[in-house]
């Protein structure tokens, strides 16, 4: 193939190997002498461990060793928290529980056996004597008096109370003066990420070099290495972490997990390679969950449609322990978004982070931003309904004006660029709003319930300017690195510190490199996910790969071009500024016979026979990029739903999405990301939810009970884009991976509320399950009937009184 360029919809080059079975996932890593690990997990949500008798398991066929938490305690340490807020309680998190278990799935012993089957069989032979304790699973109840306490050093089960306010702290005064104040409790239900590939780990120890190598299905190989070393004391330079092909993550592979530490240390103890592949059932309880907010939300404003402020208090359920980035999700990525796309002077947000006897909660696609967007976009609709104005008109009235290079909003953050009218206008070109309202009236007359919902969202992506992130609690810099290595024949290997879990790095990054160097696309390889190959990198999350990692790549490409130009000029006997580089060829103006290809220059760089003075041999560049700002994608999503009055079944009839993510490198990949994001948003709005019983058992613990959406649950998506380039990077790109998920849920719920508005419905919590909708309709109709008969009676008796 020839030179590729930015803006082309190339098919993903990684897909052929992944689809045809030639990919290498962790389970495909097979080493000589490989042993297998299975975990004994707590069936209790909260219990003291009285004793563990592993003798029968240790004697079982094929079993090599059984490790308990008490035994490995010293070596394993406590899992770290990578995000620390002011006055945060971060209680210890032993990778293997000893003394106490705090959620169903907490690992208490690890069995090493010759085969995975023997290891699993032996888990049933480990006798753990538990003393069950009282359990709390609800984020609000856990903070109340008398609730069971999970950790000694977290009174009231509270990890932190974090706040952000507009500078004047004026919300309460504004609410007193406002003509309208609306309050609503909103629950953002707990979700289970369910990546296609569950987690998996292979760990090996080389006794000669003392190197531990860990293959793990992760988004963050370098951070796993850093944190592994910090926890275990094994020196960082003697730890290698490899993320091979990763079959999806959605944020759930963004941490140092207990199993990574345990496998690494078992390999070191036994001096042999060990493997653990998470089962789907295990994935439901042992891999992080997402969301789980109880928000008391408030909006105030005037009857002319002006919004004066938003206020929210959130109980954020963090689960039993702090996962690596857990404190950052419901705070920074939530509270700092609460101005939305609106010119709102007063913001007040308090977040209480709470421990409960449930699986730890951390980032899940969108991570904090979907929760914030749901609250905001629902409040705006409730406000519009209350003052009897159109929800679109109210949004327009409060939009921030268009800006190209920075605008500070009431939460104190600086948005990069925005044109919120443009996305709304484009969406309304696709969706005939006036015509829909006519159809809606007609449908209502025929007994059909249809409604439309809008979501004019903004999100924070491109994590992150390191100093800003550090001031907000991040424990690591969030910059990114790249290495561009040109080989003597002119082919190129690009090393990026980001790590694909399905985003298409190998295609997108190659497009950028091919265009910049004029090197054929097929002559460029993108290598990611191996701490031995790349300089330190932060990984892939928070829709950051191209806006941070792509910019780091661009900087290395520029350096390579500069050096190549210098060498070409020297060889052609001219000054560098006389040389033009285009489509892979160096030319000199006015001397048409003088030209060199990029490959020829690469060859000269390595033969080093005739280099300019003070020029080192070789052609390679390394760059580190730390952005000055996040990127702030935005857009307008419109959803139409129909609710069956008989059964409550709710269906998405139409979905229009106009997003602005700045410049786009590969439109097809970006479309795929937006489609997938919207699908996950529809999943949350319509059907997904994790349900715990009061005693802490996960009742939705398998695909039989947890409803991930499939194609039959989704309509055709009608998508388009506007382009407002980001000034945060030279590519002008913003994040695309999470926008769909962030935007979707309020659009859908707003549509459902709109469908039932005439029945007096103001708010519905997700998911829009059939029974819930059926009850709402039934209760609303009963209430209306009761009101009608009361009025009729009043009329009858009216004359007499």
């Amino acid at each position, binding site marked *: 193939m020839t030179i590729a360029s930015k803006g082309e919809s190339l098919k993903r080059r990684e897909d052929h190997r992944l689809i045809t079975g030639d990919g290498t996932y962790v389970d495909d890593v097979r080493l000589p002498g490989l042993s297998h690990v299975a975990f004994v997990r707590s069936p209790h949500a909260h219990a003291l461990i009285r004793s563990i008798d592993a003798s029968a398991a240790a004697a079982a066929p094929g079993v090599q060793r059984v490790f308990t938490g008490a035994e490995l305690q010293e070596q394993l340490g406590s899992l770290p928290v990578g995000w620390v807020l002011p006055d945060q309680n971060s209680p210890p998190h032993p990778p293997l529980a000893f003394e106490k278990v705090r959620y169903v799935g907490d690992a208490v012993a690890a069995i090493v056996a010759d085969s995975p*089957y023997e290891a699993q*069989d032996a888990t049933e032979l480990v006798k753990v004597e538990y003393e069950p304790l009282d359990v709390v699973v609800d984020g609000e109840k856990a903070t109340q008096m008398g609730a069971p306490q999970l950790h000694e050093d977290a009174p009231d089960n509270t990890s932190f109370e974090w706040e952000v306010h507009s500078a004047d702290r004026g919300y309460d005064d504004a609410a007193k003066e406002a003509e309208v104040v609306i309050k609503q409790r909103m629950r953002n239900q707990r979700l289970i990420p369910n990546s296609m590939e569950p987690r998996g780990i292979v760990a090996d120890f080389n006794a000669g070099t003392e190197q531990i190598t860990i293959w793990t299905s992760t988004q963050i190989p370098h951070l796993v290495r850093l944190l592994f070393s910090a926890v275990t004391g094994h020196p960082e330079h003697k730890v290698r972490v490899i993320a091979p092909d990763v079959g999806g993550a959605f944020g759930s592979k963004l941490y140092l997990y207990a199993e990574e530490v345990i496998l690494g240390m078992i390999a070191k103890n036994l001096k042999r390679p060990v493997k653990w592949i998470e089962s789907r*059932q*295990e994935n439901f309880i042992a891999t992080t969950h997402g969301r789980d907010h109880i928000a008391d939300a408030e909006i105030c404003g005037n009857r002319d449609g002006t919004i004066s402020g938003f206020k929210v208090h959130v109980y954020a359920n963090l689960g039993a322990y702090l996962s690596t980035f857990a404190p950052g999700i419901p705070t920074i990525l939530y509270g700092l978004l609460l101005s939305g796309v609106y010119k709102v002077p007063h913001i007040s947000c308090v977040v209480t982070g709470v421990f409960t006897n449930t699986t730890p909660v951390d980032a899940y696609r969108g991570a904090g931003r979907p929760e914030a967007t749901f609250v905001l976009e629902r409040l705006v609709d409730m406000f519009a309904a209350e003052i009897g104005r159109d929800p679109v008109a109210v949004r327009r009235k409060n939009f921030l004006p268009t800006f190209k290079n920075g605008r500070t909003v009431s939460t104190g953050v600086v948005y990069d660029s925005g044109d919120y009218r443009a996305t709304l206008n484009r969406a309304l070109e696709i969706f005939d709003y006036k015509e829909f309202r006519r159809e809606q009236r007609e449908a209502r007359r025929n007994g059909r319930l249809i409604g439309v919902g809008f979501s004019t969202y903004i999100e924070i992506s491109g994590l992150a300017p390191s100093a800003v992130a550090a001031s907000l609690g991040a424990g690591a810099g969030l910059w990114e690195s790249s290495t561009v290595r040109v080989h003597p024949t002119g082919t190129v290997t690009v090393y990026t510190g980001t790590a694909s879990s399905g985003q298409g790095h190998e295609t997108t990054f190659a497009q950028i490199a091919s265009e910049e160097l004029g090197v054929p696309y097929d002559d460029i390889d993108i290598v990611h996910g191996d701490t031995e190959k790349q300089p330190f990198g932060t990984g892939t999350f928070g829709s950051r790969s191209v806006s941070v990692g792509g910019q780091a790549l661009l900087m290395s490409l520029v350096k390579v071009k500069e050096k190549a130009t210098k060498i070409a000029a020297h060889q052609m006997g001219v000054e560098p500024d006389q040389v033009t580089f285009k489509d892979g060829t160096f030319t000199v103006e006015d001397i048409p016979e003088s030209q060199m290809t990029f490959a020829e220059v690469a060859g000269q760089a390595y033969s080093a026979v005739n280099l300019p003075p003070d020029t080192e041999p070789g052609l390679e560049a390394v760059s580190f990029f730390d952005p000055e700002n996040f990127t702030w994608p935005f857009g307008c999503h419109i959803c139409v739903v129909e609710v069956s009055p008989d059964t409550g079944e709710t269906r998405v009839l139409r979905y229009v999405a106009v997003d602005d993510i700045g410049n786009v490198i590969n439109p097809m990949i970006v479309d795929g990301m937006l489609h997938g994001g919207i699908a996950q948003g529809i999943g949350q709005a319509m059907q997904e939810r994790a349900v715990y019983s009061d005693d802490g058992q996960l009742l*939705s613990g398998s*695909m039989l009970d947890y*409803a991930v959406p499939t194609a039959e*649950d989704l309509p055709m998506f009608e998508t388009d884009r506007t382009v407002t380039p980001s000034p945060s990077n030279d590519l002008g790109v913003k994040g695309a991976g999470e926008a769909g998920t962030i935007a979707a849920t309020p659009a859908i719920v707003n549509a459902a509320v709109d469908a039932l508005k005439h029945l007096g419905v103001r708010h519905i919590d997700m998911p829009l399950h*059939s029974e819930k909708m059926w009850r709402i309709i039934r209760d609303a109709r009963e209430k209306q009937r009761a009101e009608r008969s009361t009025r009729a009676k009043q009329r009858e008796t009216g004359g007499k009184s």
Partner: protein
Amino acid sequence: MTTSATAPFSYVRPSSVEEASRLLSRSGGSAALIAGGHSLIPLMKTRLVSPEVLIDLSAIDGLSGISSDTNGLNIGAMTSYEELESSDAVNEGAYALAEAAGQVADVQVRNWGTIGGALAYSDPAGDLPAVVLALEATISARSARASRSIPADRFFRDFLTTALRANEVLTEIHIPAPSKGTGSAYAKLANKASHYALVGVAAVIQIDGSGTCTKARIGVTGAGPFAKRSRRAERILEGKELTDSVVRRAAERVGVEYQGMFNEDIHASAEYREAMAKVIGVRAISMAVERAG
């Protein structure tokens, strides 16, 4: 609970029903028959059940396939959902069965799962039990020594419990040929996650030349611990001209047999299932009436 591999078991693949029955008898209750395995294997992998012996029925000749004659359809127990769904004979002679088979789970399950497995397991939310009740099917079972036929309405006894004896193998399902003017239908409200029926209703309606309903059979699944006939609904329909109001009045009785025993779980309350039996009842009966006419 978090395992992904079954407990150890031994595996046998008999070549006759008699041999399978003898193996069942010999196991003293520790064996399980496997047909398509799409209910059994997930339970084994999570170790909710751990049979010591797995008796695979796939090598037994004559357990699979569909044949039809003037008496009706004979369907081998090992016939897959996919075969039911795509069979002309089933589409002509027992439309509701093809319609229900096409709504089971997903393509992969429909290619493996079998009618015999579905009936013998009697999942309370399975689709086919309601259909064989409404179609007045007869279920044949054989042991090493004897064989017998069990009418569908005496087959489903309790939660995951059928009339099959411990040494019996379900071999065939017979569905009588429909009389002239018969229409059948299956409608369900599906669990979004599993696609099992929150409530499923099968209806078979026969209408004579004058437009009077001469026979009505209604089967319900998902609503309670096992599939049941809705006889009170049937009685309202029979002998009447099936106007919308008669259908609605009959549907009001669909599910009343489950009074006090409606299923309740995280997907739907007993109250909702009770109400939905009526709504889905209207849908199934109306479709069957339309097809009868």
